[in-house]
């Protein structure tokens, strides 16, 4: 098959699981040029085809997987793909990027994406080998762990096939069920695994034979690759990221007072040195793994036992977010126990972030006497009790007893029990917080509140990236040598600040982060502290791969377009500014840790939120204005908003 365009195929696979029909859609190349890929291309289809307020777990919901024109090009960071749907956890758009190999394999099979509608009456999986697309029975897979299913599918097809699947949690419609890619990479957030489960779709298996994608300027791409290789050589932050991965920040987060501890009551953990990234490496660390074609190779890999807890090595190792939320956030000071809880989540198909946060909500409520053993089915809840957590993770995934209520997520569980327990559910729009305490990073608080998917830490660079005193326009230290100057982010702005300067930085950074989500780039090749690839160099990748005459301005607009489309989607579901807020806890003084007594100023925060809407071209209710929509060339969304009287 001849690849018509440079970087992409111009082919999307459509699957209707109700009828069993499959078809090929060939969107106009102008659609790709404007929406590019990833979350933006997926949102384009979702906004056009999903009626507002569709039940996320009904057959009418749509699940879309997309790649971008640069996915699969031979340079670090181009290995990700996107999944988009309406979230059963938050009711917002679910928009999640996943690394590894699956998205690249989909490109190698000749597809830019898959749009899945309907629901099968019986368990099925999708098998894609180039143009051959089959919907096959998953009767023998249903109910099994992700590891068992991975082995069975490899046996049935090829051990070179790449497998995306939900786990038992997804089958059982756990609202924070994830989708795993080859057991080690994840669409963690938003309950996308439950969307698969509701469609009785256990897995999407892909094998492709077109392993060299057509590039517009292969020699030009080699030049960019040389920049990258020079950038990563002896780069202290990148070599540290290879060695320790995201867990490298465990110690610093705790010392800075921004490590969630005991359900976000404290920000520092006394036993932090027992569970650092360094300790994990020493006790159970194995050689790090990599995504496709990546020189950074930061994926954790763990195996071993301490006599009481054990990890098999089959499911990869915990990242920082997982360590934080299944660790200090639950008071757990045993690194092997945390790694085993991570493995349990990965085998069962649970998001580790929402799992840790839902458990910590329950423990705090129990400690306060709001939940009792009568509520929990006789289970006594305490901090630092990983055995009980392992039992509960299983019960959540299987929807057994108390686990059936926790499977709804912390906010719904709190509403179920009442007695004011909502106060201890640490979430925005129903999606639980990631492992960053916003009272020490006020821009992150805005990110959590404004994020289109509910609380999310990958909306923008965090405040410490531009809080170092000094004239950032001329003088950078190596950590702050961020190339954010290319975006006009000249700082510094203190971390505990939500002034107009902070909001402006957040707006620019959210847009460049959204560029990563549109192009399915990994932020770990370009996140400011690494600076291996600057925004201008990223632009060169798009130019050399696609041949598009694009610019950083054009890409930033693509990022802004993606954010605005997600916002419009949420407006259509009925979300309002009242939903763009962090829980009361964060406007109250911290109980303990380095930042004991610190709190976010509520008035300043609310003012910043309005300023953010204004800077984004949204009205005072957070609804994108017609002018902004037209400026972004998505005026058709205005008609959708008008029809629904938003």
């Amino acid at each position, binding site marked *: 098959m001849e690849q018509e365009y440079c970087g992409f195929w111009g082919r999307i696979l459509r699957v209707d699981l109700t009828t069993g029909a499959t078809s090929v859609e060939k969107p106009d190349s102008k659609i790709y040029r404007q929406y590019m890929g990833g979350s933006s291309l997926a949102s384009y289809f979702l906004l056009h085809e999903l009626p507002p307020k569709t039940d996320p777990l009904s057959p009418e919901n749509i699940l879309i997987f997309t790649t971008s024109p640069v996915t699969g090009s031979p340079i670090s960071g181009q290995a990700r793909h996107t999944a988009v749907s309406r979230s059963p956890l938050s009711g917002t758009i679910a928009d999640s990027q996943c690394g590894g190999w699956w998205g690249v394999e989909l490109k190698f099979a000749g597809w830019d994406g898959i749009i899945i509608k309907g629901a099968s009456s019986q368990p099925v999986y999708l098998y894609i080998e180039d143009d051959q697309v089959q919907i096959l029975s998953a009767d023998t897979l249903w109910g099994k762990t992700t590891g068992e299913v991975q082995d069975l599918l490899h046996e049935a097809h090829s051990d070179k096939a790449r497998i995306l699947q939900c786990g038992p949690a997804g089958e059982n419609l756990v609202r924070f069920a994830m989708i795993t890619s080859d057991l080690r990479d994840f669409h963690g957030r938003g309950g996308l695994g439950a969307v698969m489960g509701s469609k009785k779709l256990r897995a999407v298996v892909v094998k492709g034979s077109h392993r060299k994608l057509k590039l517009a300027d292969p020699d030009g791409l080699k030049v960019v690759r040389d920049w990258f290789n020079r950038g990563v050589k002896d780069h*202290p*932050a990148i*070599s*540290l990221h290879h060695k*320790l991965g*995201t867990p*490298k*920040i465990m*110690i*610093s*987060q705790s*010392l*800075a*007072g*921004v490590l969630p501890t005991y359900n976000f009551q404290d920000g*520092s953990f*006394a036993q932090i*040195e027992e569970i*650092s990234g*360094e300790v994990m490496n020493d006790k159970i660390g194995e050689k790090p793994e990599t995504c496709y074609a990546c020189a950074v190779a930061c994926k954790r890999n763990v195996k071993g036992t301490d006599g009481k807890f054990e990890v098999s090595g089959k499911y990869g190792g915990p990242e*920082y977010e997982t360590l934080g939320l299944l660790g200090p956030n639950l008071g757990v000071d045993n690194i092997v126990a945390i790694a085993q809880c991570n493995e349990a989540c990965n085998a069962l198909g649970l998001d580790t972030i929402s799992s840790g946060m839902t458990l910590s909500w329950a423990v705090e409520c129990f400690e306060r006497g709001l939940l009792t053993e009568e509520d929990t089915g006789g289970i006594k809840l305490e901090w630092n009790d990983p055995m009980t957590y392992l039992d509960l993770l299983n019960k959540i995934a299987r929807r057994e007893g108390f686990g059936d209520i926790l499977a709804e997520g912390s906010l719904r569980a709190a509403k179920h029990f009442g007695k004011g327990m909502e106060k201890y559910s640490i979430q925005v729009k129903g999606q639980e917080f990631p492992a*960053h305490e916003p009272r020490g*990073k006020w821009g992150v608080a805005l990110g959590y509140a404004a994020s289109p998917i509910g609380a999310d*830490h*990958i*909306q*923008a*660079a*965090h405040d*410490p*990236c531009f809080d*170092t005193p000094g004239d950032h326009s001329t003088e950078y*230290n*190596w*950590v702050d040598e961020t190339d954010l100057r290319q975006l006009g982010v000249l700082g510094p702005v203190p971390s505990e600040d939500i002034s107009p300067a902070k909001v402006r930085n957040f707006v620019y*950074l959210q847009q460049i*982060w959204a560029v990563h989500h549109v192009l399915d780039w990994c*932020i*770990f090749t370009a*996140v*400011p*502290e690494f600076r291996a690839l600057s925004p201008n160099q990223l632009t060169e990748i798009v130019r050399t791969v696609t041949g598009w005459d694009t610019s950083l301005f054009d890409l930033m607009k693509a990022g802004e377009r993606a954010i605005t489309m997600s916002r419009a989607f949420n407006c259509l579901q009925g979300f309002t500014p009242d939903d763009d807020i962090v829980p009361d806890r964060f406007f109250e003084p911290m109980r303990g840790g*380095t930042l004991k007594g610190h709190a976010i100023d509520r008035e300043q925060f609310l003012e910043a939120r309005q300023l953010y809407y204004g800077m984004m071209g949204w009205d005072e209710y957070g609804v994108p204005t017609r002018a902004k929509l037209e400026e972004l060339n998505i005026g058709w969304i205005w008609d959708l908003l008008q029809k629904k009287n938003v």
Partner: protein
Amino acid sequence: MEIQVKLYGSLNRFSQPDTPGLWQGEIPQGSRLQDLIAQIGIPEKEIWIAAINGAANAFDAEIPDGAKVIIVTARGSGG
């Protein structure tokens, strides 16, 4: 006075040869964090946080005898 310094992240390279991640030694009475940092030879701009006995401190904080100091560079920056 004798103190112990744990060096995390890329500051590992300032460790003493036989004790990775660790610097142990004598510093003058009344030394402040900035004096210690200079004695070890770490460029201040590479440091995000320095802590004395588990509590983060400004660089001009005085170091007590027998203190356990932690110096880190990696910051939670949005990945």
